[in-house]
């Protein structure tokens, strides 16, 4: 199977998975840290609420750590990583001819339904990721690979929750 950067086909999923694992191993060797996404989104959110309500944000039990000892919430490795993730995804999308304005949805779903459910799903994912202290990257891949019991509980619960809810939103996807 040829591997091309200007490729309209997706790459083999096993190859992508092994490459992802090697990237995290490289990150371990170079930095002692893995990868993550929801932590950076939480810091962006706290940065936003801090603009509006600085005292509330700095006193909040969930957000105050981001401002510990005068720290800036965006001066953190996960935030730098997220910036790189956005650029990497953009470059791959442009090279693959997939960078265009659209609403991705199933054949039976309208635009409004799709956007509404995407927003609602994002809310639930935000609550779930904060409660579980991570998402599919930081908990799932890194924690799963480091054999963390909590990470595997999280991962199995994600699939269980997804399968349990799939029937109810089938009109959106199938």
């Amino acid at each position, binding site marked *: 199977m040829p591997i091309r950067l200007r490729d309209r086909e*997706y790459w083999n*999923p096993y190859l*992508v*998975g*092994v490459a*992802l*694992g090697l990237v*995290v*191993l490289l990150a*371990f*060797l*170079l*930095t002692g*840290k*893995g*990868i993550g996404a929801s932590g950076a*989104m939480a810091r962006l*959110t706290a940065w*936003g*609420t801090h603009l509006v309500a600085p005292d509330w944000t700095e006193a909040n039990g*969930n957000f105050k750590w981001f401002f510990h000892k005068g720290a800036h919430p965006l001066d953190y490795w996960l935030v730098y990583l997220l*910036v*790189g*993730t956005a*650029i*990497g995804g953009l*470059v791959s999308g442009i090279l693959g001819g997939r*960078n265009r*304005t659209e609403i991705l*949805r199933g054949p039976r779903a309208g635009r409004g339904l799709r*956007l509404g*459910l*995407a927003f609602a*799903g*994002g*809310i*639930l*994912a*935000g*609550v*779930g*990721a*904060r*409660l*579980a*202290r991570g998402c*599919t990257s*930081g908990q799932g*891949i890194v924690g799963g690979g*480091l054999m*963390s*019991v*909590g990470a*595997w*509980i*999280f991962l199995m*619960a994600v699939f269980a*929750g997804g399968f349990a809810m*799939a029937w109810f939103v089938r009109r959106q*996807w199938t």
Partner: protein
Amino acid sequence: MTTGPIHLQDLLGMPLGALVFAAVGFLFGFLLERGGFGDGRNIVAVLYLRDFRVPKVMFSAILTLMAGAYLLGALRVLDLTAIDAPHTWLLPQLVGGLIFGFGFVIGGYCPGTAVVSAVNRKLDGLAYLAGLVVGIAGFAVAYDPLADFYNSTARGAMTFPGWLGVNPGWVLLAAALFAFAFFGFGNRMEAYWARKAAAPAGREAESKAPAEEARS
């Protein structure tokens, strides 16, 4: 004496240190997009047993990481005790995972893939990210009454080898067997849908052919 991690970000200082993380993120985002995860339809398809890209990528990554970390640790190239591994809170991670899973199939993304989707101008990915920010802020607003539950059933750095008292090699073997069984099941299901997609078209062609003959 182990050699890694070398903490390159500290050696370089700021702002160069930030670039190390951005470079790791670049590869992460590039691979997510290349895997097809800038499109939520490819992500949720596993929940309808149609396309198994998500578990194939995810478990390949986890197995590579498990085997690699085990090997580099055994060779003393990497000091695993110096890695920030996620700690365990049993119930918050169970309940958080379920809620996250609901959001996963309703919204079509997880946080990292939504970023990759949104930067490629997918408005559904952007809507998911907007919801994500609202959900994170909502959790912070509701934090005080949730704090007891959030901090309950804490088990620290609980790992399968430590908990079960076995060599990590056995955990790697069990995870590999689980993943390969999942891959095998996924391949069978993907073949089933491919056959099903091909079958009605074949019947249609057969039923059409005589009619066209009659017309001519």
